[in-house]
């Protein structure tokens, strides 16, 4: 199943309509940016991101978020197709909403819905009940942005956090 908000498919989520692309930028961080993932497989990707969240002091206990992401994948792959995965979860282990980004040059088998390798990873962590209840709108907006081929192409080329932010600033 591929996520496509077209006239032929599911309605665009209402949550995503209330959020601008620019609103996503504040949830990214240079310390949560990996231009070239070292991981070569699905498990290693999740470990690499879990380590990143600990190193960035977003969470203090790696096992909790690693387990969270692994369990989420047992529910169904967060690889939504077209080379994109959006692992996500709400956890008591974090105080704030954060999005980590990672890019793989060669692509990683993430058991995506279209069975194709994943190149772009966005990992969304949120507390159970964040103040503005932004978790679902963020997920919805990310899906919407990444559903656009031109956005994916631009993101595949980014080498620095600055370039990454510029891509998001340029999305209408």
């Amino acid at each position, binding site marked *: 199943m591929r996520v496509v908000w077209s006239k032929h498919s599911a309605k665009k989520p209402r949550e995503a309509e209330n959020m601008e692309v620019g609103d996503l930028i504040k949830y990214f961080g240079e310390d949560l940016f990996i231009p070239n993932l070292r991981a070569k497989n699905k498990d290693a990707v999740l470990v690499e991101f879990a380590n990143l969240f600990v190193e960035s002091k977003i969470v203090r206990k790696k096992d909790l978020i690693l387990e969270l992401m692994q369990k989420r994948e*047992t*529910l169904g792959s*967060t690889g939504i197709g077209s080379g994109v995965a959006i692992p996500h979860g709400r956890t008591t282990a974090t105080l704030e909403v954060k999005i980590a980004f990672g890019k793989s040059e060669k692509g990683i088998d993430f058991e995506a819905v279209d069975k194709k390798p994943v190149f772009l990873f966005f990992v969304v962590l949120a*507390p*159970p009940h964040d103040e503005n209840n932004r978790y679902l709108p963020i997920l919805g907006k990310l899906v919407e942005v990444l559903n656009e081929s031109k956005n994916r192409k631009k993101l595949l080329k980014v080498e620095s956090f600055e370039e990454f932010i510029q891509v998001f600033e340029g999305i209408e």
Partner: protein
Amino acid sequence: MLNKQLEFLVALHDLDMMLKDIEDVKALGFEAEGIENLREAREELIKKIRKPLLSTYNKLQGRYKRSIVPVKDDVCLGCFMRIPTQLITRGRSDQDVILCEGCGRILYWYD
């Protein structure tokens, strides 16, 4: 090192939220057909938690939206009561599972 029982409780809390979120996440277009996998994982997790703690957790889940709450700047973010000093020391050391004296929720220290 985080108290194992507290770690299990936090994992259970996260899992319960994931189960609650399934329909919302599906509505966004994500694949979420493995609900049985999550339920099995929950059953396994429950076996690791001491019964009195699990009972406390279940009672709190019935009473509040979230039964485990963070402590920030020595304040319970569930009821915003300042945590007594002796509890802060015990909580920070991660040796015990600490309940807030104000609201009874399970406390989780971030730093």
